[in-house]
């Protein structure tokens, strides 16, 4: 039996801000609105109609700049191309959004994110200034795992 609802695609993105205090103003609702406005500008009424139905900001981490967006499988490329046109959120902060992974479920995105974070931590290892920092970092890398009990994310919504 095939489900008639649109299957979702999850876009794992990374936001980077020009100024370090751009992070205070970022919240999920504002981000949702800014992305829909950007779709309206880049792809017009057609784009908004395609994407807005099943579009949601699923996860936002202001410390690492990781953003997880959900949209329909048929139109995820529309959303992906719009991310390139976003250069400010709400007329204040200049930012850039890059998509680092596209997955079919939140779980696959999480698995990728763990590997990605580990890579980023390892990249910061040569810039460690003290030995204590270095050991703390190495411990963090070693403890990166997908915790089975915490994951509530094997949901695949169809709507």
């Amino acid at each position, binding site marked *: 039996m095939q489900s008639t609802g649109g299957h979702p695609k999850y876009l794992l993105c990374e936001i980077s801000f020009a100024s370090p205090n751009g992070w205070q103003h970022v919240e999920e609702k504002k981000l949702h609105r800014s992305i829909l406005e950007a779709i309206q*500008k*880049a*792809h*017009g*009424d*057609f*784009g908004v109609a395609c994407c807005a139905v099943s579009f949601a900001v699923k996860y936002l981490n202001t410390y690492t700049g990781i953003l997880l967006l959900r949209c329909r499988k048929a139109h995820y490329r529309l959303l992906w*191309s719009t991310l390139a046109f976003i250069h400010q959120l709400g007329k204040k902060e200049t930012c850039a959004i890059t998509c680092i992974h596209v997955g079919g479920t939140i779980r696959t995105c999480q698995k990728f994110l763990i590997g990605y974070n580990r890579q980023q931590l390892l990249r910061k290892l040569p810039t460690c200034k003290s030995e204590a920092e270095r050991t703390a970092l190495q411990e963090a890398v070693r403890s990166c795992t997908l915790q089975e009990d915490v994951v509530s994310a094997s949901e695949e919504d169809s709507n």
Partner: protein
Amino acid sequence: MACHERMEDDSGKYERIVHKNGSSYHYLKISLEFEEDTSIRLNSAQFKQLIISSLKQLFGEIGAALPFDVLQFEENTLSAVLRVYNRDLVKVWSALTLLGSYQSEMCAFRVQQVSPFLLALCGNSRTLKLE
């Protein structure tokens, strides 16, 4: 007798060439009609700008950047011949369909003919007059 047969051999053959995508463009013959009899006149630049604004409303900046040409424009009848790429035909045609007004006057685009070949637009069996 033998050479006659040889001649017959050559004359019986023919070659058939089929073009699947003969043209990379599509040509549209359109006209702009206003609901009431107004004295609004557009020149070709304003006409093209009207189509671009409809594309922008419907398909955004990316739609407004679709390349198309107004090959011919008649100011009196407000009719034109457009040329679009094959991949853009659906978008341009739907933008023409959904345009409703110009300078707060109700209007509509009528698409009279669409063809991948420009020559086909010069003759139309609808405009034939039968005696």
